[in-house]
């Protein structure tokens, strides 16, 4: 069954899809590599600070509803059936 990845806002636009299924990968770092492989430069720009592999501060990654900052960061393990969400800071309401 692999891993379900849901995208919101700029990530959804970069990908052109609301969600994708990815074959099992070891951890979040490997998942992001796989997304970059599939979606190329557009995904790199959204994920990483310019010219580095440092995740942008504005990128939120949730694994089964929990932020990876509360788990093991990019080393957070993934297994079949996990749901990963990737999105920028929320901005409901008005200005």
């Amino acid at each position: 069954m692999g891993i379900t990845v849901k995208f919101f806002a700029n990530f959804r636009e970069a990908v052109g899809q609301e969600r994708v299924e990815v074959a099992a990968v070891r951890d979040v770092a490997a998942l992001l590599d796989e997304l970059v492989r599939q979606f190329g430069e557009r995904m790199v720009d959204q994920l990483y600070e310019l010219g580095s592999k440092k995740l942008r501060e504005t990128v939120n990654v949730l694994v089964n509803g929990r932020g990876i900052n509360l788990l093991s960061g990019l080393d957070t393990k993934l297994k079949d059936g996990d749901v990963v969400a990737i999105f920028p800071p929320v901005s409901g309401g008005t200005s």
Partner: protein
Amino acid sequence: MPDVGIYSKGKVTLPDLFRKLRQDIGENVGAIGCFVGVVRGLSGEGERVKFLRYQSSEDAVKKLEQIAADIEKRPNIRRVMIHHIVDQVAPGEDAIYVLVAGHRRDDVFKALPELMNRVKAEVPIWKKEVTERREYWIHEFAGKK
């Protein structure tokens, strides 16, 4: 029970929400406060805004419920409603309604900004601003663009 929702345009109106709010708040409500978030015609940089396009995750309603319930359980608050439009919304159009009914005005005036701050910080809703010259997703809490 708090009353929350996410709607496309035209599916919710403020008078209807007020009517609903007043149906069962009992005889001890002395204060009703309400906040309407309206789309502005000028962006933070003074560009003319064509519209905002909102997007939400399927968890947004659950989060709205949680926030409303947290405030509604206070002893002097009787009812909290949060209703958000998630759609393409033009300047002058409403994007969010928050209503609070409580015993006294102090409790209500305290609750309203708290509710809005939590909605903006916690609810999985995003918006893209489309001006005459460009369009971008707004990262409200990541420093101003």
